[in-house]
Every structure is written in structure tokens, then in C-alpha cells.
């Protein structure tokens, strides 16, 4: 069964450093998303991406964040200068035209720890 994959599973970085989180969405999907979950809190939407551009972004997704689809398979989230409060699980998701109720399929997540 096709699935969304994410690398790395765990990333530890120093405050102020740049990180890139990588995702490979399901191959025939066209819509891509990033969410995050701070420990003990809700899963929160960050950004959606379609047709090589951002469709919607939340207020969390400020100038420090960017997304890119550098080739036909990868979808990346970059945080330019990490802050302590960026520590969270980051989930990539994708969706396609075949899902009748706009279901999104999530990857296993990357745990980002900012020291």
C-alpha cells in the first residue's frame, strides 16, 4: 500500500540553525501539506501546497518557514533559523483526486528538537 515517508525520523539542532525536513508524498497525489504537533497539544496545520505554489498557510508559518517541491517526488519544509518553540513533531501529508472526502494521508513524522 502506498505511503508517505519522511526523513529524518529525529532531528536535533541548535537554536538559530537551519533545518530541512524531507517528505516523499504518495506518488499520484497532487496536494501536499505540513502539520506539526507540539508535545501534549493538537495537530496544527502549517501550510498546503498545490501546483507548485502555496495554497494556504497558517499564522505559524512565518518568514522563517518555506516549502519546496524540488523534483517530482520530494516535498521539503525548511526552517531558516530555528527557535526553541519550533521543537515539535512535524507531519507531512498528501491527498489526491481519488479521495472522496478529501482524506489526507500522513507520514510517520519527524521529531525536531531545538536546543
Amino acid at each position, binding site marked *: 500500500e502506498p505511503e*508517505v515517508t*519522511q526523513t529524518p525520523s529525529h532531528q536535533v539542532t541548535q537554536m538559530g540553525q537551519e533545518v530541512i525536513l524531507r517528505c516523499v508524498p504518495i506518488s499520484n497525489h*497532487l*496536494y501536499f*501539506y505540513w*502539520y506539526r504537533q507540539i508535545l501534549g*497539544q*493538537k*495537530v*496544527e*496545520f502549517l501550510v*498546503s*501546497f*498545490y501546483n507548485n505554489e502555496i*495554497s*494556504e498557510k*497558517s499564522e505559524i508559518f512565518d518568514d522563517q518557514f518555506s516549502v519546496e517541491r524540488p523534483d517530482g517526488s520530494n516535498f521539503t519544509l525548511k526552517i531558516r533559523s530555528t527557535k526553541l518553540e519550533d521543537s515539535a513533531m512535524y*507531519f507531512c*501529508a498528501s*491527498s489526491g*483526486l481519488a479521495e*472522496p*472526502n*478529501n*482524506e*489526507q*494521508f*500522513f*507520514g*510517520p*513524522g519527524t521529531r525536531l528538537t531545538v536546543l
Partner: protein
Amino acid sequence: DQQVKQNSPSLSVQEGRISILNCDYTNSMFDYFLWYKKYPAEGPTFLISISSIKDKNEDGRFTVFLNKSAKHLSLHIVPSQPGDSAVYFCAASWANRDDKIIFGKGTRLHILP
């Protein structure tokens, strides 16, 4: 801004019995409602969904009921199995394919032997 609310942080159910997880929402413009299951250190796994124009959707042991007038939905699992122990997230979305999903805080389900 809690558009999707799960008021029970946890629920314990005997194996073989029915598990009922509840969810309330405030935004009457949602088009779809979804349930996701999450194990520790894994991503949310899609379980079942329902369109806002329906009141019931069934898939094997899982049934979702939607009561639009009460802005309430529930997930029924019958019979409950040990592997059902996980956190269940109620979620909602709109009709556009690139719309975000709004998640509730989750309910931790414990299936007791």
C-alpha cells in the same frame, strides 16, 4: 479557537464491547469529517470519513454517525480489540482539495483485556 472539540481525554472499554468516541464542532460550514488513529511515535492514520450530507458511514468494525443539527459526530468501534488502543482524533475539513484539516485534541482509547 476550538472548532473541533473532543471533550473526553481518555476512555477505557472492555475487549469485545463497543467503544464510542464523541466529537463536537462549531463551524457549520465543514463539508467533511474524518477520524484518524494515532499510535505513539507514528503519524495519524486515516480511519473513516463522512460527508456532511450523510448521517452514517460504515466500514467493517467502524461506524461514524453525524448529527448536523447537534453539530456532533461519533465513532463506534464494535467489537473493540486490543489493537484499537490508540489516540483517536476527530477532524474536519472543507470541500476544496487543498483545504486544511482541523483536528480535535484527541481521545486516548484503552481496550482492557
